[in-house]
């Protein structure tokens, strides 16, 4: 079953095209990973798909009553706002008791329940955010660079947990990630984004495309480290021309 489907969707911010028209669908239970350099519009892509972004053109359809479990990149909590992890997990609605017990067990955050959210370490916070997302009984988990700031070991175990969550809860997963080497293996589909969808397919298909190599380099070490400037220069010339063209004629970009 299709959970979210976008047709010719484009996004502008203040009249500037961030994402050129693209088609996208995600099916129940699928794991889709978005990769791309900084400033490629990955977060905008996620925001547009969960309806947090006015769309400039095209159509966006979600399954009726789609439940989204969202894990943000970071969570800034004002010093003036007292909030225990316990309270946070019950926002906006009180969590089901049985589900809460299994989720606490699964994420191992039981000891953190009475802690203030502001006092949690990066890894603890990510687990609490994941737990809250799972408590929404999501059809789809949406993660925006959820492992930013975690070391490789912590990141790897976080992704293990997400894969496990997918198996147990049967939800689809849509995530943005920098940890290509970890993410690629777990994904059913990889989307390579840079202001537009450069290429997509199974991880095996994507890594051999020219677009992917242009963005991330062909070898394994290139996959692990991304440098914006480096890729900017390497990006093939057709695309560069296209970008300039689009910026100059920003208002004519969206076809619908």
């Amino acid at each position: 079953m299709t959970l979210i489907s976008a047709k010719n969707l484009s996004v502008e911010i203040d009249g500037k095209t961030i994402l050129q028209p693209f088609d996208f669908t995600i099916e129940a239970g699928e794991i889709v990973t978005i990769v791309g350099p900084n400033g490629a519009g990955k977060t905008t892509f996620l925001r547009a798909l969960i309806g947090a972004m006015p769309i400039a053109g095209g159509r966006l359809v979600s399954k009726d009553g789609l439940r989204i479990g969202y894990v943000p990149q970071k969570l800034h909590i004002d010093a003036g706002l007292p909030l225990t992890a316990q309270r946070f997990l019950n926002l906006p609605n009180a969590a089901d008791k049985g589900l809460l017990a299994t989720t606490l067990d699964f994420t191992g955050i039981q000891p953190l329940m009475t802690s203030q959210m502001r006092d949690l370490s990066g890894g603890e916070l990510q687990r609490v955010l994941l737990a809250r997302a799972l408590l929404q009984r999501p059809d789809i988990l949406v993660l925006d660079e959820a492992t930013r700031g975690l070391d490789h070991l912590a990141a790897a175990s976080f992704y293990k947990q997400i894969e496990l969550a997918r198996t147990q809860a049967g939800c689809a997963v849509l995530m943005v990630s920098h940890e290509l080497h970890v993410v690629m293996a777990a994904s059913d589909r990889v989307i390579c984004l840079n202001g537009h969808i450069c290429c997509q397919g199974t991880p095996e298909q994507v890594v051999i495309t020219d677009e992917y190599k242009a963005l991330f380099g062909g070898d394994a070490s290139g996959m692990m480290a991304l440098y914006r400037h480096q890729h900017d220069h390497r990006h093939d010339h057709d695309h560069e021309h296209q970008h300039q063209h689009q910026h100059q004629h920003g208002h004519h970009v969206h076809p619908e």
Partner: protein
Amino acid sequence: MGLEFLDSFLVRAALAGIGMALAAAPLGCFVVWRRMAYFGDATAHAAILGICLGLALSLPITLGILISSVVMAIFVAGFQNKGYASDTILGVASHSALAFGLVVATLFQDIRIDLMAYLVGDILTVGTSDLMLIWGGAGMVIGLLVWRWSALITATLNQELAFACGIDPKREQMILSLALAVVVAVAIKIVGVLLIVAMLIIPPATARIWSTTPERMAIFSAILGIMSALGGLYLSFSFDTPTGPTIICLASTLFIFANLLTVLRPALMR
């Protein structure tokens, strides 16, 4: 009817203070959490203009206040992402509204506005109809905030988190702006335009010290607000000082005292 007790101006003043404190507490928490203190000032200043225009156009004063507050909110929202920092826009809006209000007030000399009463409040002249307005407004604000409570907190935490749960942060922002307009209309007679924001943020700031959850902070704020209102009323009556400022003085004394206590307690326990 047995409402004779309302005949005493002190009883009316006390009830007005309690009503205001109850409405200001939960809203004040959001003002603190979302850093809306300056926006609150702008809304309060707009009320002066609203009062004058209301009088000039023979509209009810409360209606004038509500309209000017809402216009202020729309004005400020309209300037978002237009290349100005938000405190610049709020500064422009807030002080312009105050200046225009004061000028318009003198232009309409014939309608005789007791400007001081609106600037610093005049709780002792609260009549039965004022009281109904205050409690009606307070009831509305409390109802609105209780109804939207969890959605408001979610939207305050993180916009995407809110969207993912089907909550529109813009709508929640509008609800807070509306609640703010109503609280300004309610509090103007009690603490006055200049001190409304103090009534909104000082009790929550004090309550923050002992709070572990948003709900506790709102409840402690209400208790502190009521203590300040009733205590301030009593002190101003005893020492013949202006009531609105006395209420705020007491609220800030509680704030300092509570903070001193947290600093000194470890030393005293030793």
